[in-house]
């Protein structure tokens, strides 16, 4: 039992590190690409407009990546980063299932549901 848990800790540790490194690499690559192309533009964050639709949802970002938009690539990297803790929780669901820990299996499912519900937009329809 104890050994099993140590193994789970180790896998989660690797999972988290891999997620962050992958996400940071994608963000960096997208950033270099964007700055090489539009680095001379003057940024304006003084007034809030909100991001365009294609940068506001998982599906939109993915479409932008396929369309080779550097901003979408950065956003995709950020989505990978957001997905990292979610993947960690998903892995815990499996780990608790293997350990036949029903209580924690259920609790972890609740957390995972909340996370996926939030990322999917919770039925929020943008104007």
């Amino acid at each position, binding site marked *: 039992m104890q050994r099993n*848990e*140590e193994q*789970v*800790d*180790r896998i*989660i*540790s*690797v999972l*988290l*590190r891999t997620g*962050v490194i992958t*996400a*940071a690499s994608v*963000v*960096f690559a*997208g*950033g270099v690409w*964007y*700055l090489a192309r539009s*680095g*001379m*533009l*003057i*940024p304006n*964050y*003084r*007034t*809030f407009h*909100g*991001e*365009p639709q294609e*940068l*506001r949802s998982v599906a939109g970002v993915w479409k932008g990546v396929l369309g080779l938009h550097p*901003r*979408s690539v*950065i*956003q995709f990297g*950020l989505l990978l*980063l*957001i*997905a*990292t*803790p*979610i993947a*960690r929780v998903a892995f*815990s669901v499996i780990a608790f299932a293997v350990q036949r820990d029903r*209580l*924690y299996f259920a*609790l*972890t499912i*609740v*957390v995972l549901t*909340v*996370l996926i519900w*939030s*990322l999917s*937009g*919770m039925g*929020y329809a*943008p104007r």
Partner: protein
Amino acid sequence: MNSLEFSLVVGLFGAAAGFLGALTGLGGGVVITPVLTLLFGVDIRYAIGATLVSVIATSSGAASAFLKEGFSNIRIGMFLEIATTLGAIAGAFLATRIPTSALGVILGLVLLYSAFLSTRPKPEAHSNDSRDPLAERLKLGSRYPTPHGWQPYRVQRVKTGFGMMFGAGALSGLLGIGSGAFKVLAMDHAMRIPFKVSTSTSNFMIGVTAAASAGVYLNRGYIDPVLAMPVMLGVSVGSLLGARHLSGTETRVLRIIFGAVVAVLAVEMIYNGLGGKI
């Protein structure tokens, strides 16, 4: 400043904040939002979006390292994450409703309080006299490594801790911070979990909490990739370097300096918020 210069400067500020945040245990995220809004004139909603993303990066990186040391308690983390994620979503929704000047003032107050908390002495051991039946049912107790071998511990006042965690999650979602100081407060102070276990479990939870509000921020268009990019990369590199330098004595001066910086930024945020300038 064009985008290239802006990214480089913001990246450097992020690296410095991440470095000091990791060294002092305050977290890099706490100063990024005030720096972006006060120094660079960024709208607080974009600043919060960018900071939240960087918080996920640093906490996941740190959690990865902590896990190997055996301090983190995954059961406690997972159970309390129900409270923090729901709190985070509530907080993120609230953030889209209340005026930005109010966000500035609340962030300032939270910063002041976190800086104050970080100066408090760290209690080492808790007495383990009373039992919480809920903690037993949830199998929250465990053991952690000490210089004298593995030390078992029990968990108390689970309901209070759970409620405080909802609050910590709400602050995280409202302000885009990790709110690690409040998570530690709930675990260490209310639930009587050993300090080291509290801090590393808190780190473990921050990423999940932040991921919950990130969904709301993303859908509302708060996360700007070009702004978040230098912040996230800078803070990550900075806190990685900071974590390598963790060693007790020499960090005391830095801790005081960083605490002072945080306090000044906090007062400035409150002042500008009250003046309606945020």
